[in-house]
């Protein structure tokens, strides 16, 4: 029997280097360190400024999923063993593209926008959640509980809600996870964009509060603090790695050709690319 644990790459390096220990005090096996050492510099243990500017920096949540499940794999455990994987064999993260409308003060509503066009229709969706980072504000802004309520942008049927204790949430920041599986069933059918609207009410009243007082405003957030939409899917057919590669080459080629074509660089009829 061996233990597996999630190590957050953002833990203080000294702490992490000295003893990569399991939360319950056991020393993490060597293979764990192998996994950390063998992954891409963009996977979280790069020194600042080392990652190329246009590189996609994976979200910490995705890094922790990868590290946990691949460590479990080495121990012969399948990812579906973890309830958090919802028995998915593919987990895709989409970064929020929405911005706060700063002209609106106070900020009573927020729209979260996601481009999910790359999500395969062939895979079965087994779960979907919206993860929003709530900053710690220090002093509580008001007494009593707040209720976060999430809606599709074009419907007033609530998707999910969460209660926040004013004192707790003021002292500690954290991720609020809201289930948006229903949204995929209704909005996804005919659209590649998903839009959610968030509001918060105070106690039993229906009065909306300023989301900034709950640490939810999006100004000044780094990549790792942006909201992400996580879709858990399961493919019925065995995935072919070369399909993935072909898709990549195709999308890369079209990205390369697009500016060239726009500038008319190609004189005369376009030359066939040597395969």
């Amino acid at each position, binding site marked *: 029997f061996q233990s597996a644990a999630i190590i957050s790459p953002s833990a203080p390096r000294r702490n992490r280097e000295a003893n990569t220990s399991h939360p319950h005090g056991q020393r993490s096996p060597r293979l764990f360190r192998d996994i950390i050492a063998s*992954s891409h510099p963009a996977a979280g243990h790069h020194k600042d400024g080392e990652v190329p500017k246009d590189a996609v920096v*994976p979200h910490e949540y*995705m*890094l922790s999923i990868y590290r946990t499940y*691949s460590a479990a794999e080495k121990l012969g455990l399948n990812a579906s063993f973890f309830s958090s994987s919802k028995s998915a064999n*593919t987990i*895709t993260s989409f970064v929020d593209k929405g911005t706060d409308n700063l002209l609106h003060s106070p900020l009573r509503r927020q729209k979260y926008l996601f481009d999910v066009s790359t999500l395969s229709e062939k895979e079965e969706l087994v779960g979907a959640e919206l993860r929003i980072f709530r900053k710690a504000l220090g002093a509580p802004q008001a007494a009593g509980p707040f209720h976060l309520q999430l809606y599709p942008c074009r419907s007033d049927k609530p998707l999910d809600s969460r209660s926040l204790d004013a004192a707790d949430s003021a002292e500690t920041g954290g991720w609020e996870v809201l289930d948006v599986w229903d949204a995929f069933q209704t909005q996804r059918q005919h659209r590649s964009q998903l839009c959610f609207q968030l509001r918060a009410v105070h106690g039993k009243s229906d009065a909306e509060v300023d989301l900034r007082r709950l640490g939810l405003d999006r100004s000044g957030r780094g990549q790792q603090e942006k909201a992400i939409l996580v879709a858990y899917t399961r493919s019925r057919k065995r995935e072919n*790695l070369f399909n993935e590669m072909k898709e990549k080459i195709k999308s890369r080629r079209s990205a390369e050709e697009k500016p060239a074509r726009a500038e008319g660089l190609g004189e005369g009829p376009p030359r066939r690319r040597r395969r």
Partner: protein
Amino acid sequence: TAPNNRHGKRHGKKSKYRCSKKALHVNFKELGWDDWIIAPLGYEAYHCEGVCDFPLRSHLEPTNHAIIQTLMNSMDPNSTPPSCCVPTKLSPISILFTDSGNNVVYKQYEEMVVEQCGCR
């Protein structure tokens, strides 16, 4: 029947050429896939190599057909090729990569690592 040697000991050298699992390190960077694969940079895939000669050992879990083909090959190598040394058991690996929309995806790919070789 397999020739018995006088000492009853196994031929160390011969077993080396028999069908078995060999090391194979795959480096995604060398494949040119490191622009879309975030982790891992590479992994131990192993591969199967060696001859399937008569008699086939049980750990190679040969199919009946492979046993017949190997027998015919041992009787007349020109008439029938030997059976093939192939992976008989494989396991998955997890890959973290960016898709065509630059979204970060975790996927478990089946049949990526050879766990066991056999004759088929």
